[in-house]
């Protein structure tokens, strides 16, 4: 098992390919093709607009009420039924994707070997870690999502946060955006505690129009804080997809020997027999995970659990498929 060290700051020379396993990239190509098939040739039409206005595509009729703009009256209906109805259209906009990546200390945990996970033949990371941390997995996922989105011509932004926003890449669909994102992910420190609410507030203050927020975090914070933060996102009419990144060992807690445990976010050392406390621990973490998922789904957001020991492909495929299903449902249903 890979043990854990305090990570060093990542250098700017980090190669984006470090985060994209060949298998992942191969799958991503498939995603792109599938996305193109959904809205053939129309990049803007690939994403459902939350604004029902008077744009291109008809949505529905509604009865006229005094004060409505008479330019939107459907005279054809008036001619047939002698009643005044307004035509409503579904506005189609470009997708602004904002990647929120958690860089707090708890994300630095990992039990998978770096060599196996990276697939690059490297035994250690650039900061000489020999294990694949949750942050490594989160950055890989963020890079992959950014890559897909940029390939589709949409704008992508990045927020790296811990107890506050640590770094940000403004939304853009320009050519160098992806490298900026990768660079930002590479330089983020990961040894600070989490303040999820503050980070969300700082992020929302920077976003004017509606965006799709992709939250990639272990969400090891109080579920009420998560609920409050998601409520504010909902209130600002943003959409959100939550990827909860977990290490398999965190969910198994399969230690056999008593050992002192040290928190990665400055928690005091705790001497405990893991076998004695395992049941209680699993109850606590599973309860928290379920609570986070329930909270997320209660706001109508998507939730996906990501295991660092799995390839990125399966969760990405599941995500894109579910997202497409939602688009289809909102468009035709």
């Amino acid at each position, binding site marked *: 098992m890979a*043990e*854990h*060290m305090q990570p060093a700051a990542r250098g700017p020379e980090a190669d984006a390919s470090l985060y994209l396993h060949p298998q992942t990239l191969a799958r991503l190509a498939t995603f792109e093709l599938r996305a193109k098939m959904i809205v053939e040739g129309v990049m803007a039409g690939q994403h459902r607009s939350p604004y029902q206005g008077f744009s291109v595509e008809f949505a529905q009729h509604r009865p006229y009420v005094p004060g409505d703009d008479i330019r939107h009256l459907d005279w054809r209906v008036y001619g047939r039924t002698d009643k005044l109805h307004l035509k409503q259209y579904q506005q189609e906009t470009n997708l602004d994707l904002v990647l929120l990546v958690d860089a707090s*200390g*708890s*994300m*630095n*945990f990992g039990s998978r070997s770096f060599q196996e996970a990276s697939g690059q033949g490297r035994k250690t990371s650039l900061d000489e870690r020999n294990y694949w941390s*949750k942050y490594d997995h989160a950055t890989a996922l963020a890079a992959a999502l950014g890559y897909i989105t940029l390939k589709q011509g949409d704008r992508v932004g990045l927020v790296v946060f811990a107890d506050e926003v640590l770094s940000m890449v403004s939304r853009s669909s320009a050519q160098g955006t992806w490298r900026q994102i990768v660079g930002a992910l590479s330089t983020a420190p990961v040894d600070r505690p989490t303040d999820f609410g503050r980070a969300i507030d700082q992020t929302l203050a920077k976003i004017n129009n509606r965006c799709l927020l992709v939250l990639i975090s*272990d969400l*090891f914070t109080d579920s009420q804080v998560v609920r409050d933060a998601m409520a504010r996102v909902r209130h600002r009419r943003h959409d959100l997809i939550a990827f909860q990144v*977990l*290490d*398999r060992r*965190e*969910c*198994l*807690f*399969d*230690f056999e*020997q*008593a*050992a*002192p*445990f*040290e*928190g*990665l*976010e400055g*928690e005091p*050392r*705790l*001497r*405990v*027999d893991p*076998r*004695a*406390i*395992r*049941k*209680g*621990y*699993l*109850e*606590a*973490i*599973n309860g*928290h995970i379920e609570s986070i998922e329930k909270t997320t789904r209660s706001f109508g957001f998507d939730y996906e*659990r990501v*295991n660092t020991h799995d390839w990125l492909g399966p969760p990405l495929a599941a995500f894109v498929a579910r997202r497409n299903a939602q688009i289809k449902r909102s468009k035709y249903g």
Partner: protein
Amino acid sequence: MTFLHPMLLAAGLAAVSIPILIHLLMRRRRKPVQWGAMRFLVEAYKKHKRRLTLEQWLLLAMRCLLIALVAIALARPLVGSAGVFGGTAPVNMYVLLDNSIASQLENEQGTTALATHKESAAALLEQLDSTRGDRAALLTLGGPPEAVVLPPSADIAAVGEALGRVQSCDSRMDLRAAAERLRNHLSRQEGASGQQNVVVVLSDFRAGSGDASESLAGLGGLEDLRVLAPRPSTAIAGNVSIVDVQPIRTFLVSQGTGSEQASATRQAQVRVTLRRSASASGAGAMSRVVVDASEDGRPRGRTDGSVQEAGLGTATVPWDPGQTEARTVVTVEIDGRSGERERVLTARIDADDLPGDNVRRESIEVRDAIRVVIVAPRRLSPTGVRQFNSADWIRVALTPSASGSSPAESLSTRADGIELRQVEPELMDAQRLAGVDCAIITRPDQLEDADWDRLADFARSGGLVMLVTPEEPSVHVWPDAMNRAMGLSWQVGREPIASPDGIAVEAPQGQSGATLLSMLSAELPELVSSVQVMRSLEVSGVDNSSEVVLAMSDGRPLILSGVPSDAESDGGPGSEGSRGRVVLVASALSLDWTDLSARPLMVPLFHELVRQGVGAARGTNGAMAGTWPTAPSRAVELRPSSSRDGLSIGIDPATRLPTRAMRETGVWNALDSAGATVGKVIIDPDVRGSRTEIQDEASVLAWLEQLGGAERVSWIEPRMLDADNGSGEASGVAQGATGSTRLGASLPLLLAALALAFAEAGFARIVSHARSPKEGGL
């Protein structure tokens, strides 16, 4: 609570810290694990903190308790009935008190071992509770053991008083006999359930008092006994014992005649054997031996204690380093004017730590002459030595200085301290035999069965019977009658074996054959060298009870002696205290048979045979303390010759044995019904019991375990005898003496430790959740 091995307990309790140290060391050596989901770990820990802490402490306590239990069990606690078992069962305490000669040993403070044992016994008795039903018995171990209080008495105070009256004796400790007596008592007490039987053996367990090499096995019925005993003494004690006092001649015969005899002062040579205990066998020690002819060890008329006084024999024995045994010969003058026929020689040595064996006595008989009768038919006087028969040769040999008369001229001859008479075989009656010391039979072939019976009775009463092979019959059947009457097992050939060229005679080899000829041992080889035997009867079947006095060069005995016995005798031939002697000459004293009669050996040979034979046949009237000596005939009681007020021991007329064992040394006068002294009985200390060498604990423990069974013997620790400890937990005796022994308390503890070990293993498995399923996962 008292432990047999307190050091082991201390070490075991120190080992309790091992689990704690392991726990602390493991904490230090473990590498910390950095953990991301710490908040859930902390949350779970806080939720189960109390339970986890309790489990850990409980586990640690179980492990510590396990080690402590094992340590306590190995330390062998002495836990009483009020201890581990919590019972209040009454106790029967049997105190076996060593009052043997070894108990006279004094320590540096002058306290005897017996006094120490009595103090210990008193302390033990004080801790009994008669209201609970405790009872006590008291047996003394000085042989033979005496049941002072048996069966156990509930009157503890009375037992204590009896304890105070116990005095030391001069016999050796006999634990086996005491155990047998105890077994007999306990076998009659079967059915008295609910009582604990505890045997307390109080002794120093020196080599003399309790020889651990002796077997106590075979005492069935004592397996349930719990035995308590003090640890064997380790104090070095110097002791020199007189183990033997033996006059060279067991009686003195005057060489003078008439009035000279009455005033003669006779000299007796006494061989004194000393033994020194090995533990005191240092260099430079000397022992002074004083031998006197008084009964109390003090020379008569002696006022200043000077050893230069006439009549007092002294000798000094230097001890070489490591030497444990020494012999010396002391010449003592005996005043014959007192008119006493039997005199007592008293040997004594300097005082040492054990005074009981510093004095030893032996009697010596003073008489004018030895009365010898030759039983042979009378005949005409021989005209030459060629016509001498055996009786003639013996007469000449025994009275060589009776000149002027031919052998057959006089029926009675007195010369050289020997009074010789000759009687016809048919005139040999009991009355005639009663007045002689030695009967020489030269024609045994002419004796009837009644004559043989009279001879056997004469021999058994302390007479010497000398049988000479007759030359007349060609077939000898008389040995059959001899064997039957005397109870001998000699196989004598019926026809003589002729050796025309003669067979040489050899002096007997070794010490066993030289008893009767010990005075001639220096000259004997030269004297026998000229003797030839032409004809003799073949004798075989010489057992240990017989001795060959002279043998021929082909190994056949020429002269042999034996002790008469009969089938009704308990002791058997040659047993201790046997009286009488039978001497057989396997060749006729005729020149046709042997030229012994004409050789220089003849005179000294027959003088020694008669003198030493009579002394040997007379036996001894001495006995060791702790035995039942045979009293002289007509005696009805024994009284000490020294002043012991009122002490008298009756004599059973049927057996002539005292009514109780003689445990006290000294000279005892045997009195008849009229109060007249008819003889003396000398009781000497049993020096087997005065060996003061220390014995190691292991051997004594193994020895005592034969008594009570393995693992049922406990040592009495000094603090257990501390009455100030009270009857509570601190009272070692209340628990040790009346309670279980080592294994009795250790076994439940070991079982408890075993159960705790299983419980600990199970609990540790539960606490460690080693078998909890691997739940969770993504």
